[in-house]
């Protein structure tokens, strides 16, 4: 049923001059879903989001956002989407209340004063409402930005790295809020670099070099990579890491505290490589690959394909 999809786009492409920044991305996001968008810096996440909210026009591709055509109904999309930019982009020389009031006016929110008041209270900003936005700390700025992009009761929230530079407690609260909003029926597309945040999304997409490389639930994404990971603990791990690197089948050797994670896509080759360096002092154990291992592996793979 197409009406169940908040975002339904195919082949979306954007070029800046010679460079293809977003390359034929297909994406379907269901209403009420929290969709995590991951990928390295410069992979095209922000450009893709800008096309979704009508800021940029795709060079190719078709699709709808909240049932409105991506190419021709940008104005309608803008009315029902809340977009939170990567950088804080409200007015630092306006107070919290003035910022919210301004945005509410632009969206022509009915009964503006009480809408602003509700929004202030909901996000716990009521007693700070006369403070200038420029004086707020990172966490509070993020709360203000979220309040501002929710003030017109959007149906879709596009969040571009909303938690960058925010402390863990504020991040936890932020995510609780997002889950609450999604439970109320809001669709959320969120980009992040934090793996723990990725695990809190209903579904994930991994983008690199402008292409969507993996998608699905957490388990599905982990399965696509077919990555095998072993962990090893014991003495002289540094020397062991140097020995393992570059051996056939070994694609990643990463230090995690007092253990090493050794991963590769070819399970037999990897086990052969490990067997060659077995040492009774070391304890080897096969574990489930983490999201981070999977993503780094996907990126390496993509690099081979695109360079």
């Amino acid at each position, binding site marked *: 049923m197409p009406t169940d999809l908040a975002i339904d786009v195919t082949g979306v492409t954007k070029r800046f001059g010679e460079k293809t920044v977003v390359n034929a991305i297909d994406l379907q996001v269901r209403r009420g879903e929290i969709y995590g968008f991951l990928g390295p810096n410069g992979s095209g996440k922000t450009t893709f989001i800008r096309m979704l*909210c*009508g*800021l*940029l*026009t795709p060079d190719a591709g078709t699709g709808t956002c909240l049932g409105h055509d991506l190419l021709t109904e940008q*104005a309608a999309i*803008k*009315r029902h*989407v809340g*977009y939170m*930019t990567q*950088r*804080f*982009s*409200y*007015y*630092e020389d306006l107070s919290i209340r003035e910022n919210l009031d301004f*945005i509410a006016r*632009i*969206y022509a929110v009915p009964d503006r004063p009480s809408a602003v008041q509700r929004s202030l209270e909901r996000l716990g900003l009521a007693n700070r409402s006369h403070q200038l936005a420029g004086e707020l700390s990172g966490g509070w700025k993020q709360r203000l930005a979220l309040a501002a992009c929710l003030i017109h009761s959007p149906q879709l929230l596009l969040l571009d790295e909303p938690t960058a530079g925010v402390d863990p407690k504020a991040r936890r609260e932020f995510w609780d809020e997002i889950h609450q909003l999604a439970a109320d029926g809001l669709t959320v597309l969120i980009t992040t670099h934090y793996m723990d945040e990725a695990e809190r999304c209903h579904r994930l997409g991994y983008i690199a070099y402008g292409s969507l490389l993996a998608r699905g639930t957490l388990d599905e994404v982990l399965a696509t990579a077919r990555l095998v990971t072993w962990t090893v603990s014991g003495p002289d791990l540094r020397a062991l890491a140097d020995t393992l690197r570059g051996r056939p089948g070994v694609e990643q050797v990463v230090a995690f505290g007092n253990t090493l994670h050794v991963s590769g896509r070819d399970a037999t080759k990897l086990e052969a490589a490990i067997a060659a360096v077995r040492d009774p002092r070391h304890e080897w154990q096969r574990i489930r690959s983490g999201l981070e291992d999977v993503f780094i592996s996907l990126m390496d793979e993509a690099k081979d394909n695109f360079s």
Partner: protein
Amino acid sequence: MNRFNRHRLWAVVMKEFIQMKRDRVTFVMMIGIPLMQLLLFGFAINSDPRHLPAAVRAADQGPFARTLVQALRTSDYFALVREAGTEAEARRLLQLGEVQFVINIPEDFSRKLLRGERPTVLVEADATDPAATGPALAAVNALAGSVFNRDLPGPLARLQAKNGPVDFRIHAHYNPENITQYNVVPGLMGVVLTMTMVIITGLAITRERERGTMENLLATPVRPFEVMVGKILPYIAVGYIQMTLILVAARFLFNVPMVGSLPLLYAVSLIFIAANLAVGITFSTLARNQLQAVQMAFFFFLPSILLSGFMFPFRGMPPWAQAVGSCLPNTHFLRIVRGILLKGNGLSEIAPELWPLLLFVVVAMTIGVKRYRQTLD
């Protein structure tokens, strides 16, 4: 101990040069501003203006009158571009600013001259800018003694009276006392408006982009056009406040006469303000940050002050400089302001200066809005 270290010093010097090279606009400004000043001050500006447009109203066409006209022409100060048939026509030419002088040769010029009665030649001058008319009027007086040396030989030489055979009467219109402030203070209005309108709009829009708030704004349903007009309107109000301040000062501090209609002046100024705002918008689409916007405004401001006729007589500049000056809105606005305040010009008299202003607004707005749209996608 941390003593002076030349390697560290050199590191800072090198870094500074690299940054200087990267910041194109500043670099262009460092080279461009001195070049521009050199060209403008060195070649364009002339405080002894020659070839000023003049009209002759000759009621007497005799040989003596022709000699006089010829002498005026060869003096270099006058370019006799027009002939006026009637006094009214002559007056209108002055009012429109088409000529700066009208030379009236009376009907009985030759007869009186031969009789030794020292005929009167009335030289009417548009003295709104005393700096422009002063040297030419001085030349007229010098001319009086020598003009007929060749025409009155032998026995006629007796007609060469001690103070010359002709009596030149000078009538300085609009500013009979040659008060410089009458010219400068109304002119300031154009200069102040140019300065603030271009810089302020440039800054206001660039700031929005520099701080990232523009992206946020454009993700809302607000249309780019609404953003632009919404940003401009408050500054139009600022422009009018500035204008009023200058007018009040002109009236009560400098006693500048205000002959014409102030409502007309206020109405026409809107076009001028719009012209400068359009330039500001165009700059803001080119500038990457607020500093660059100010630097670009400076490039516009310099010719606006030097080539517009504000600081130096417009007609004293070489043709290329006059051509550049004619493209600047301030040039036309200055003539309008001076025309209305000092000459009492109405809409029909200022019309020739109005359409270039309108044309400028249309062109600058088109470029500005086009560029403004491009920066979004």
